[in-house]
């Protein structure tokens, strides 16, 4: 290496470092204007989650405490993890016929991968994904949920 090359290397080296320092220096001076990190529990109130965000499976109930689930088990079959268990019962129709209906919709949140396949499979759109994410509990058994509300029944006209 010639002496000239040696000094040239030092010069380009220092110059490249200065270029990088300019970028970081720029951020040092501007950082209070473009803050992008948010501290999590502090921003809880203004946290906006996308409406499609898949956080957990819920069953939609209307004001009369009625849902649209017929107990057809299509979602149970579509689920890759065995997260859903449908227990059905037989209701009596006014005409005195037996009719299959949903008894309990058991949902294992701890097994769910939020893949949305059950929601896609449901023919009556009885279940949806809810944009929630704070699922931690102290005991695993609390993650096993019953999705149909107590006393709820199927909406009129849903087949």
């Amino acid at each position, binding site marked *: 290496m010639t002496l000239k090359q040696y000094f040239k290397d030092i010069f380009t080296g220092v110059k*490249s*470092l200065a*270029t*990088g320092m*300019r970028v970081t220096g720029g951020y040092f001076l501007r950082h209070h204007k473009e803050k992008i990190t948010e501290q999590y529990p502090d921003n809880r109130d203004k946290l906006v989650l*996308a409406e499609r*965000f898949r956080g957990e499976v819920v069953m939609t109930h209307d004001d009369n405490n009625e849902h649209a689930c017929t107990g057809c088990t299509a979602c149970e079959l579509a689920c*890759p993890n065995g997260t859903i268990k449908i227990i059905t019962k037989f209701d009596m129709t006014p005409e005195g016929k037996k009719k299959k209906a949903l008894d309990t919709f058991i949902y294992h949140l701890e097994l769910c991968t*939020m893949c*949305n396949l059950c929601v896609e499979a449901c023919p009556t759109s009885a279940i949806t994904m809810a944009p929630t994410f704070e699922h931690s509990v102290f005991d695993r058994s609390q993650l096993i949920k019953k999705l149909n509300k107590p006393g709820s029944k199927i909406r009129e006209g849903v087949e």
Partner: protein
Amino acid sequence: MYRETDIIQTIPGTDEMVINVGPQHPSTHGVLHLVITIDGETVKKVEPHLGYIHRSIEKMCESLSYRQFIYTTSRMDYLSAHINNHACALAVEQAMGIEVPLRAQYIRVVMDELTRIASHCLWWGSVAMDCGAVTPFFLAFREREMINTIMEETCGARLTMNYMVPGGVMFDLHPNFQRDTKTFLAHFRSKIDEYDELVTGNIIFQNRLKGTGYISKADAISYGCTGPTARGSGVSCDVRKWYPYEVYQQVQFDEILETAGDSFARYLVRLAELRQSISIIEQLIDEIPAGEFQAKTKAVLKPPKGEFYSRVETARGELGVYIVSEGGTTPYRIKFRSPGFSNLSALDHMVRGQKIGDLVAIMGTLDLVIPDIDR
């Protein structure tokens, strides 16, 4: 011989020593276990030991239906979740003879390229961190966060999307998608130049990468390297160019090739690919045609008896999905050819004779994602 339980062991009669890096080592970016033989500071041999994150995905897929198995592939190379899902969807579509609507094809390609940008961003931050720079990691995550927000809005998830389904995509684009994507691209264009100023030109970074981790073109081919790892050695292997799928045939982009074959060449390839991805998205984002986003398919997919193979270019290289069908509702056998596994096998060749301090930097330029290697 060494025993794995021994952290350091000397080999009698020589100056050589065997040490374990990992499986819980921050610089391996995952649970990768490397058994290294060193002589002083020179690496003599590197032996990757796998199995710490084996989830038996291929076996699991055999008991899942053709719709269900796709979600597991998001958990392989979790940084290219979209592209993995895409490969599976392509294989199933090929088996079933499903015609994908044009709108879905556009959406898929745009999503793939966004994923590639996010993945390369994360890689850029982590390779700089492997060489000792901390700031780039935060800058890269800032850009990646924008993509994650876009993904969250349209796909409903940030990392394991499960958005590509046989026949198209799961939901239609969110009304804000095009606007947000364009805002992101405009923002990102200026930031790439910042990346160059901060890291690419940096003399320390260049000295760390230039001339280390060399692999020749012939060796890259014989180790089965793909993706930016192989293209850094001048192997033309971009699946998007050679075997175009979806609408890649219609878009103009260059396959980035570098011939130096060292770590810095691999770095340059990925950085240039970021620019190519921007240009691909820009060409497509305004052209997305109206129409269906998902083809009508039967509820239960039953492909005919036979073997089906599809390949895509993920952020790390070529991903192949091989399905053997017996005509039932579940696959008889599924095999994934993951890019990380072959790229890792070349590590030993690249590192031999180098200093141990360079090992981490070389590994960084391979962009290893361990769950992809060890499925």
